[in-house]
């Protein structure tokens, strides 16, 4: 009886919670992609991460910062220390003050965070017609079904319907809440040259950059899932043992 009641309560609580989460936003329902990182055993695809980083670097980084990340984090993508030093060295960052009290420019080091494209939010918004390109470090976690959403957004540009009034610098996107977005379609076929033979298509670019952004927001996902598996296996075995112990102890009572 009590067991049934517990199940009933659980179902009762879970359902509305789930309904509450599923609804939200008036934009088109998202198409769920199958990601390499989906599921209990999903991991990041290192090749996709590297391609995604290339897309971020060559396309998105001209408008979007990723201030939570440092070059040293790129070891997760499969780069070694020297490669990371080389990547960082392509950027220059302001440091100082030096002994004379002057600020100076120097090549970035692995310990530096990704340099932002604009000095501050005001400058970023000003350069983008008043719309602030959000920091992308956590963009996947900051949206419902973030990976599917950003993929949809990057591939979801459309001709605006006739009755829609778009201002200069505004575009129509079927997945953006409210449909109007102040980001020009950032990706187009053939825009970035891949070296590993992956297709140079908008879809491929979008999928790769989403893989990269998902990692950026959740860099410990693989450790998390692995640890979880161990923790749960331990608890399940321990629970079975305790159940046996409990039965044994209670056997003289029943």
């Amino acid at each position, binding site marked *: 009886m*009590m*067991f049934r009641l*517990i199940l009933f*309560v659980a179902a*009762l*609580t879970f359902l*509305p*919670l789930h*309904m*509450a989460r599923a*609804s*939200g936003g008036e934009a088109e329902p998202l198409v769920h992609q199958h990601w390499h990182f989906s599921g*209990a055993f999903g991991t990041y695809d290192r090749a996709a991460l590297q391609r995604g980083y290339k897309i971020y670097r060559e396309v998105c980084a001209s408008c979007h910062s990723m201030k*939570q990340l440092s070059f040293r*984090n790129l070891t997760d993508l499969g780069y070694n220390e020297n490669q990371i030093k080389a990547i960082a060295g392509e950027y220059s960052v302001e440091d100082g003050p030096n002994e004379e009290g002057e600020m100076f420019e120097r090549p970035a080091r692995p310990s530096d965070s990704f340099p932002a494209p604009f000095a501050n939010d005001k400058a970023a918004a000003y350069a983008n017609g008043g719309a602030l390109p*959000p920091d992308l*470090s*956590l963009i996947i*976690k*900051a*949206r*419902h079904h*973030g990976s599917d959403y950003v993929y949809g957004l990057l591939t979801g540009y459309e001709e605006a319907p006739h009755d829609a009034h778009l201002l200069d610098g505004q575009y129509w996107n079927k997945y953006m*809440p409210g449909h109007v977005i102040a980001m020009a379609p950032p990706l187009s076929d053939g825009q970035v040259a891949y070296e590993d033979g992956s297709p140079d298509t908008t879809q491929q670019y979008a999928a790769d950059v989403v893989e990269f952004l998902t990692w950026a*927001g959740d*860099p*410990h996902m693989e*450790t*998390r*899932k692995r*640890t*979880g*598996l161990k*923790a*749960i296996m331990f*608890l*399940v075995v*321990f*629970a079975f043992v*305790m*159940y046996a*112990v*409990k039965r044994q*102890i*209670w056997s003289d*009572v*029943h």
Partner: protein
Amino acid sequence: MGSGERAEFKNPVVSWIDERLPVFSMMQQEYGVFPTPRNFNYFWNFGAIAMFMLVAMIATGIFLAMNYTPHVDMAFDSVERIDRDVNWGWMLRDIHMNGASFFFIAVYVHIFRGMYYGSYKKPRELLWILGVVIFLLMMATAFMGYVLPWGQMSYWGATVITNLFSAIPLVGDSIVTLLWGGFSIDNPTLNRFYALHYLMPFVIFAVVFLHVWALHICGSNNPTGIEPKGKQDTLPFHPYYTMKDTFGLLVFLVVFCVFVFYAPDYLGHPDNYKEANPLVTPPHIVPEWYFLPFYAILRAITFDVGIPGTEIVFISAKLGGVISMFGSIGLLLILPWLDTHPIRSARYRPKFRFFLIVFLVVFVMLGYIGSQPADATLFGAPLTLLGILSTTYYYGFFLVIIPWLNNTEKGKDLPKSIHDAVLEDAREAAKG
């Protein structure tokens, strides 16, 4: 406590300490041989589970505090640092974040257990009241904790909730200024919330101590709701219930770990991964799930109370909402005096049982309503209407149905003793 008889210990060190400070005797009496009804079901696990969660929250919280910076310019980034750079920081944070939710799950089940089996009735009124006090303290603690990461929902949730106090006549605005530490939510607010969030779990711990003390004065209730009459009705707490509680706790922890390790953000809101911005209001401000039923009651009152046809308003809609919300918890406090029916357990009160289960459904419904935008509909019905109906049932259950049942419900025949009830259950089970 402690003034009772002392136990004998073989170990000389234990014995030496016990003669001077009888902590071992106390543990022995309160958790070793403590006579406990033999017929607990798994609902009786949740007190121990709640206790475990409280300790887990304090333990993870202390380590988080070592790495957290309570400043509006740095709080968000310091939390990200915990997630990214602090060794096992992501795990501490996921446990603490989901731990709050699971603590509430445990306590909600624990409270419902109390209502179902009439554990609030004489002589356990004070025990129950201490429980409600714990519940209130937990809500305050969780609310302040949610503000700390300084995300969008932190900031705007804090704005909505602290603004409620301005509805209180005369002193409202001063209270809000005091909570904020100024004239808007800003760094002083974050600082005081952090200080209080660190303090309150220890206050909860103290009240839990009183709660368990009170429990050990009158002893536990049980699924039959009749008091143990002798040795055949009870078992020593150890090993019977220590082992059973451990098993139940482990099962609970398995579910907990599924969330911590595989869906750590499922119960949270994506907006809290955006840094707080006083200039951008999120389209839809929602509190954490465990507040939703009360949030729905708060929002259910959308009308002023005054003299119809005039401009005179006694209670504004806002004040009305605040009163109903706090009142809904106040009702729990006086429940022992609302329900004076001599039978404790819903097992032997079919009518009470029916209305209580409807109450549960309504409560969950309120949670759903609280999660939705104010103008939402469900199967074509406006949710505001469902909100006011559900709130009416919530109040009606306590103020009309329960008193009515006091006088009208006859109830089933009670078994002669716990022992008899157990034997009866065994016979039923054998029959299939």
